């Protein structure tokens, strides 16, 4: 399978502080990936390396077959970047920014941009700096769509957007990538939105990759169980069967990639009684917390 992004043994330090430790990651073509991670887990560092704005301390990060920190202009043409905060040339107007970008991309599809701008209902001489964050997000998205890139890297696309603009963003993105064999690599703090759009999830833990798998498989295979047993509070720990465990009074919540039968069997071998063990359904956000912990 062709890999659009490939990180090999990626390690990065900020001074003495280790942020990424030996990260390995492969992103296949034609899928939408959502990268999730709590604050300080190296998500932004990974994105900055992918975008070519940070040179890793060691290891290699290939984007469309080239090292991310020295991408050729031709390869950059194939990558659409959405920077955190919907960064745009805010001193330009709607018309000026389109005119400027169109000169750099031979396959420029202006209709994508103007369709979005029509929906925005603003005059063509409206300055970007006078727009709301939501309006600016539409301008940036329109520019990326018009660029018609093979790979879209969208860093924290939901930042500053109200629910309406977030839904709009997701709708346009889904419509745009459908049947076009585009690869999307996105991050967001709004996991409910990510769940609607991604095919695969990448979850970052402390300095490392915790998990990379199709969302469907994660939902099918990752389980949450609860039971009550005051004797095991603080004693039961994560192991090869239990991915994570949390306690609240005598209520134990445990997360596992094993089935209920296998978990029960495992608890029995540990000498733990869990007669009331019950499976609780999870959405992606709950699964994310289950994997990474609340703290």
């Amino acid at each position, binding site marked *: 399978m062709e890999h659009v992004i490939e990180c090999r043994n990626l390690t990065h330090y900020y001074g003495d502080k280790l942020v990424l430790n030996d990260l390995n990651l492969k992103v296949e073509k034609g899928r939408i990936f959502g990268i999730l991670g709590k604050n300080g887990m190296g998500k932004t560092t990974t994105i*900055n390396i992918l*975008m*070519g*704005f*940070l*040179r890793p301390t060691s290891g290699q990060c290939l984007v469309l077959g080239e090292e991310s*920190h020295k991408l050729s*202009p*031709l390869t*950059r*043409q194939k*990558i659409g*970047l959405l*920077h955190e*905060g919907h*960064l*745009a*040339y*805010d*001193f*330009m107007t709607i018309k*000026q920014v389109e*005119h*400027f*970008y169109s*000169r*750099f*991309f031979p396959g420029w599809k202006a209709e994508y941009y103007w369709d979005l701008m029509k929906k925005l209902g603003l005059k063509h001489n409206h300055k970007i700096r006078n727009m709301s964050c939501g309006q600016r997000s539409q301008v940036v998205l329109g520019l990326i769509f018009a660029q018609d890139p093979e790979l879209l890297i969208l860093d924290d696309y939901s930042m500053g957007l109200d629910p309406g603009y977030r839904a709009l963003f997701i709708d346009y993105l889904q419509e745009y990538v459908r049947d076009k064999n585009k690869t999307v690599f996105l991050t967001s703090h709004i996991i409910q939105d990510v769940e609607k759009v991604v095919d695969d999830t990448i979850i970052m833990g402390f300095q490392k990759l915790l998990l990379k798998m199709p969302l469907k498989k994660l939902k099918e295979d990752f389980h949450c169980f609860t039971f009550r047993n005051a004797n095991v509070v603080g004693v039961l720990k994560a192991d090869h069967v239990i991915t994570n465990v949390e306690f609240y009074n005598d209520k134990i919540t445990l997360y596992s990639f094993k089935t209920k039968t296998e978990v029960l069997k495992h608890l029995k071998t540990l000498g733990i009684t869990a007669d009331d063990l019950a499976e609780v359904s999870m959405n992606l956000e709950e699964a994310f917390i289950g994997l990474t912990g609340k703290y």
Partner: protein
Amino acid sequence: MLKAILYKEWIKLRWAVIVIAGLTVLSLAYSASMINYYVEFQGAFQNWMYVIGKSLLLKNIVFVKVLPLITGLVFALLQFVPEMTNKRMRLSYHLPISEKKLLLSSVGIGYIFLLAEIIFLFFGLWLVVSLTYPTEIVSKALMSSIPWFLGGSAIYFMASFIILEPSWTYRIIYGIMTYGLITKFYEANTYDQYQTLWAYILIVAVMPLTIMFAGYRFRRGSK
């Protein structure tokens, strides 16, 4: 692509180019009126004594001295502060054009506008001074003003370099160095202090290369 970069830089600079051109006209008019005032009210003999002996002419054209400096600084601020605010330079670095070409063309375009303003000012100065004084004085005044024009060029390149530098510590260090360097261009208060002109020209000629260093540091994610 170069046309697109020219378009972007023009959007940032157009109002400043017009305002500076207006200021140039005003400062030349002021210089002309000052020259006229001294000639009219002090008499030709005394004026001649001051012009030759005490380099009075250079004091009369003080706006010509500071205008290139202000223009260089304003152009650098207008071009590169918007690029560095919220790390907007990332947008430019992702454009499908080599970084070297992008940086040198951005600075080159800004410098062409600055140079146009300088040439306008230089010819204006020639016109104003030659209306009153003989060729020898005109030539001395123009030669003495060249370091000021070079000072405007130097501040443009150095200010661009400092703004594009990602670290505030380095910016402060470069800022102090620039201050020391720029004052050298404005030390002369009398005629004939332009013998070291070639050294000034050499310094200014290598300055655009510093931009590459700032760009490299930004790209590496230096802080």
